[in-house]
């Protein structure tokens, strides 16, 4: 088997096996353009790898947990991480390894390389996968090359690539991946040329940075930009930026470095270089017959072409669908900025706002003042939900980024091992539960408990039925002597052990970086939950106002309320999220064809362990106080404000899927088996059913006679 093909040997017959990128590079080479020495691992080698190692079947199992079309993004990410881990833990079969060693250009063993994707769907005129698959820059030595090839193959299954395929209705199981291996040209300046601006067909667009292109492509370095007339090459607009850093080759990989001060005020390209790159681009456009997106680098005044692909977004009414998926990629630098904003600005503001709202006695307000208060709360929630989407959700990507980083570094058997390393970071939800446990152990009367809870800021989203539920539940807590203390101690031991293992992977001079990355990931994990709780408090205050509106409307007095009567009350918080307009049909479903009962269903394994117990369906807040120790909670999702019930549960089944949703995080903290993503959970199970939760495999079993 030819494991490696030379670019010079490629002809049209190879096109199906080498992907668009390699085919384009071969054409450019034929036209005598400066292309780095390049070889290609064809896609049939990828197929051989999948078949020989039986990885194909394992991927099918991971992707088969749910219909692809029904998967939420979180579930795709989870599946993607598991699949990436399978790839990383599977060595190349001997036939491929020996073929690679024998057929690889001997020079490549001595040089730094770039390993790029060239998937069968990639870079066609219909769709571009630009930026969706991985490239590995600065690979040295055969072992690292083998790992890099596997990393690029695995990126066919990245969450971004899966989402994009879902959008385009492409079957990921039919996708394949060739790999381009090039020598790394360490250019002094690099960039991207769009020979035709996607938004203006009369201009071309050029962007450039100092150093390697990796900084521009991953968005970590802001480029200078030029708009150029396609008609005569004249520079129409120039965008200068604050130049402070550049991407350099590191020992293995790349790193961001400070730009020498002499270059800070100097654009990366001169007018003559801009003209040369533009003219080269026009030539390539003519060669391929369509506008091109070209990556280039300049080394010792020579312009090297790294890759070219057709621009697929021309003449489209909609914006590039890739944009959203590319946004899933966040750098640690961006996350540091986000963390600061969330910790020092957003959460304190949300807490302050909720506390201020809680001080208003709604029932005492006149109708006019009440209407103002209600509208303010509605606007506030809209505003904070928008901020939550803009800042808090992207911050959660820090967990995912760390997961990938940790797995690349440690290659754990269990792909979600990293979550243990992030837990125990003092989440608000857990602090609240700890406070409740302490209250429970004091044997107070119910009236006293209600008073204490009312006077504690940590519980200012807990009122009405919730408060009653909590007080009822507290009487159950002492029945679990020390169980959760044990789990917390065990978590702590595991965490310390893993931390030691993780840090041992860094050399002495890199250890500080390892600590910094871990600290940021822990913040991301903690904030993922804390910001939810803070937002929940605002939501809860609006909920109270909406209820007050309903109360006043029933009385139907006053002019302002007559106006308000036309406004639809908003449903918020737990009350809304648990309804969602679904009908809760019984667990046994009848039709003209007979009676159907679900025996076993597959979701996602969100917290390890096995538990069997009586099911308790949670559909409304009054269900909370009926929960008994050891029962299996079955719900839409564990809302942050209902976390207090979790320590009583024997197991958890959630409709929403994902390893990093609130309920899954809390379940892991308490070591309670949890399965998520059982979309029909509240329909197929009824309270009282005997249910087994298998948190290892992500299975639930409903025991029937």
């Amino acid at each position, binding site marked *: 088997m030819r494991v490696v093909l030379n670019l010079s040997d490629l002809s049209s017959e190879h096109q199906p096996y080498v992907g668009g990128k390699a085919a384009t590079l071969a054409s450019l080479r034929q036209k005598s353009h400066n292309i780095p020495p390049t070889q290609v691992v064809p896609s049939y080698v990828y197929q051989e790898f999948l078949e020989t190692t039986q990885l*194909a079947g394992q991927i099918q199992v991971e992707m088969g947990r749910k219909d692809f079309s029904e998967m939420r993004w979180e579930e795709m990410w989870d599946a993607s991480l598991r699949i990436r881990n399978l790839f990383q833990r599977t060595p190349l079969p001997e036939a491929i390894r020996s073929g690679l060693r024998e057929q690889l250009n001997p020079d490549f063993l001595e040089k730094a390389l770039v390993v790029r994707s060239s998937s069968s769907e990639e870079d066609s005129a219909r769709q571009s996968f630009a930026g969706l698959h991985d490239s590995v820059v600065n690979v040295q030595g055969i072992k690292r090359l083998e790992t890099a090839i596997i990393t690029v193959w695995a990126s066919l299954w990245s969450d971004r690539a899966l989402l994009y395929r879902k959008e385009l209705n492409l079957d990921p199981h039919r996708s394949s991946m060739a790999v381009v291996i090039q020598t790394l040209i360490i250019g002094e300046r690099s960039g991207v040329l769009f020979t035709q601006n996607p938004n203006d067909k009369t201009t071309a667009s050029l962007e450039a940075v100092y150093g390697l292109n990796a900084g521009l492509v991953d968005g970590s370095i802001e480029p200078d930009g030029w708009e150029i007339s396609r008609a005569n090459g004249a520079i129409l607009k120039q965008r200068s930026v604050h130049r402070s850093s550049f991407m350099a080759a590191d020992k293995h990989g790349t790193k961001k470095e400070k730009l020498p001060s002499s270059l800070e005020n100097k654009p990366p390209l001169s007018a003559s270089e801009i003209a040369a790159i533009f003219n080269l681009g026009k030539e390539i456009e003519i060669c391929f017959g369509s506008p091109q997106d070209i990556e280039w680098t300049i080394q010792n005044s020579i312009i090297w072409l790294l890759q070219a692909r057709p621009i697929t977004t021309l003449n489209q009414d909609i914006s590039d669908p890739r944009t959203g998926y590319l946004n899933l990629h966040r750098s640690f630098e961006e996350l540091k900025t986000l963390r600061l904003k969330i910790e020092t600005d957003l959460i304190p503001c949300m807490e302050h706002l909720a506390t201020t709202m809680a001080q208003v006695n709604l029932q005492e307000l006149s109708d006019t003042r009440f209407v103002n208060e209600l509208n303010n709360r509605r606007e506030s929630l809209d505003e904070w939900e928008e901020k939550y989407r803009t800042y808090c959700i992207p911050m959660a990507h820090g967990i995912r980024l760390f997961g990938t980083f940790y797995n690349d570094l440690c290659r754990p058997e269990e792909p979600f091992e990293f979550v243990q390393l992030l837990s125990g970071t003092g989440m608000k939800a857990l602090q609240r539960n700890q406070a409740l446990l302490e209250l429970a152990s004091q044997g107070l009367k119910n009236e006293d408990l209600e008073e204490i809870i009312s006077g504690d800021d940590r519980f200012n989203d807990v009122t009405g039925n919730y408060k009653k539920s909590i007080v009822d539940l507290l009487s159950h807590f002492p029945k679990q002597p020390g169980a959760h203390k044990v789990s917390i101690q065990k978590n702590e031991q595991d965490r310390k052990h893993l931390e030691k293992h993780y840090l041992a992977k860094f050399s002495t001079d890199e250890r500080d970086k390892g600590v910094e990355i871990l600290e940021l990931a822990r913040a991301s994990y903690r904030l993922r939950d804390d910001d939810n709780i803070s937002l929940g408090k605002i939501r809860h205050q609006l909920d109270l106002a909406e209820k007050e509106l309903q109360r006043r409307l029933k009385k139907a007095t006053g002019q302002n309320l007559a106006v308000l009567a036309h406004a639809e009350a908003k449903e918020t918080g737990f009350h809304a999220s648990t309804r969602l307009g679904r009908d809760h049909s019984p667990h046994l479903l*009848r039709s003209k*064809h*007979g009676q*159907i009962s679900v*025996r*076993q*269903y*597959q979701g996602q394994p969100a917290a390890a362990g096995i538990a069997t117990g009586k099911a308790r369906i949670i559909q409304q807040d009054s269900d909370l106080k009926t929960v008994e120790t050891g029962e299996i909670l079955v719900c839409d999702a564990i809302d942050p404000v209902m976390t207090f019930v979790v320590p009583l549960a024997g197991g958890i089944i959630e409709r929403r899927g994902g390893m990093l949703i609130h309920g899954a995080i809390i379940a892991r903290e308490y070591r309670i088996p949890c399965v998520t993503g059982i979309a029909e959970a509240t329909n197929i199970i009824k309270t009282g059913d005997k249910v087994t939760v298998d948190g290892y495999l992500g299975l639930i079993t409903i025991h029937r006679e």
Partner: protein
Amino acid sequence: MTDDIYNKVAELFQTQNLGVLATNLDGHPYTTLVAFAEEKNLKHLLFATSRATRKFANLGQDKSVSLLIDNRQNKADDFHEAMAVTVRGEATEISVNDKPQKLTIYLAKHPSLRNFVRSPNCALFSITVDCFIIVDHFQNVVELRP
């Protein structure tokens, strides 16, 4: 959900010719491949066997059977794509009076077995279905009682 599952079972039966029949003799399970045909409402499934076979002897002692019908293709895709239905029920031999009508159904699906089923030594059985246990997506299990 109900119609959807029923239709999936019906489609599987239409597209498959063979199933694995399990019979029982003194607590020892015994499996063989049989050509089956389904009746319209899926409440009965038909298969034919020579009277000299082990399964025929077993059925004389214990009518309880299980029949596995699936669409696996022995490929990696099976873990994601394949569906299996285990039929649980009781198998009884079709009486002489009913045989012509049931044979019409059976031969419509298996015309090549015409000579086989007309042999005097061949018995036609009907499985009265108690329930279908349907497995798809590798581990999702649903029971349907027609």
